[in-house]
């Protein structure tokens, strides 16, 4: 028993053991914190990617509406039909068209704009004969 006690203390008491144990715990804690931090950083990065994806979805929809001539009549019902055909079910979108002496013409799939989530937006130009217009979109998750 006496021998065992001596081997634990190594002639220095048990201070070294407690110090080592404390240090190991501290390293473990820091490592854990870093892992958790890294996890949230990765999650946040994925979040940015999904936001970018959302903006690109809105941009593609508006470009399609422009190229297939749906924006040309400058008519809200026509644009609404086109928008409902193209917009994925998980999104809401609003399109606003302004010209030099026109608008705003607003087409939206939801009249309520949320304050608690990310809203992607963008702009493009288009023309109807000699007149030019700016179409702006906002897109968000339902």
């Amino acid at each position, binding site marked *: 028993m006496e021998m065992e006690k001596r081997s634990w203390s*190594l*002639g*220095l008491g048990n201070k*070294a053991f407690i110090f*080592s144990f404390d*240090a*190991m715990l501290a*390293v473990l804690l*820091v*490592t854990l914190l*870093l892992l958790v*931090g*890294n996890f949230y*950083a990765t999650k*946040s*990065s994925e979040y*940015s*990617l999904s*936001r*970018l994806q959302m*903006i*690109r979805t809105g*941009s593609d929809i508006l*470009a399609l509406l*422009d*190229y297939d001539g749906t924006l040309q009549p400058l008519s809200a019902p026509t644009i609404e039909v086109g928008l409902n055909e193209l917009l994925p079910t998980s999104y809401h979108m609003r399109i606003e068209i302004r010209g*030099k002496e026109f608008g705003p013409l607003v087409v939206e799939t939801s009249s309520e704009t949320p304050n608690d989530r990310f809203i992607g937006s*963008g*702009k*493009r*130009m*288009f*023309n109807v004969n*000699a*007149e*030019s217009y*700016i179409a702006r979109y906002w897109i968000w998750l339902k």
Partner: protein
Amino acid sequence: MAKVKAMIFTIGLVMLSLIILSLAVLIFNTFQKAELTMSNIGALDRIYELDTSIQNVLKNLFKSSWIDLEVDNELNLVSFKERIPSNNTVFNLTLTNFKNFTESNFDYVNLDLDNVAKELPLIITPHNIGYKHLNFGERIIEITPASINFDKYEIFLDFNENIVSCPVEYSEETDFDTYIQASSPAMECSLRKIEPDIENKVQTEEGFVYLRADSDGSLVIIANDTIAWVETKIWLNPLTDINVGYPDGIININLPEIGVSKTSSVRIR
């Protein structure tokens, strides 16, 4: 011995802590860079979207120039059909309105359309052949190739008044050929090759059209005291993806705060 062991152990722990801290700094930096990259990609997407939409509008507005432009990649043929003197009023007004509207809504966009309104310069790529007007709205069309990388020109003229005389036919061998055909209500000039480096005239009751094809490949067409519908066909050497557009530097987008500057042209056909 115990002291040495304790020292090695402490050094080991210090090293481990340093490695962990370095990793933390590395992860933090990577995360920050990823965030910045994402935000830059978003900004570049917006610029690209605006740029392509402006290009599309300018391409559509070209219709108001009343130049009928055709590109046939199978036949290696580009054809321009227009009336000279051309009516540039609507085209210039449309361009000015578009420029003012765009620049007033996007202060980081600059449209350099002065030369387009003045000369309506078009570039055939990849051959690098210029087709422009010396003062669009007036009477001169000028074609300037960078080299003789085409086979021949064919010019078809049409007049309201009668033709009085046709250019003399030329039969000698040349680096490239220039053919002309002209029609009017009562008389026509059949398709014929014309002599290079001299003035070739199609005389009408009211005026004349002057054509000069120089040995360097350039061609000038001038309508004097007459109105002519001019169709110019350029038979090109075979190259892929023949297209016609405005010269470079028409659209300038500059966002110094994110270090992005973009200059682009407009492909019309």
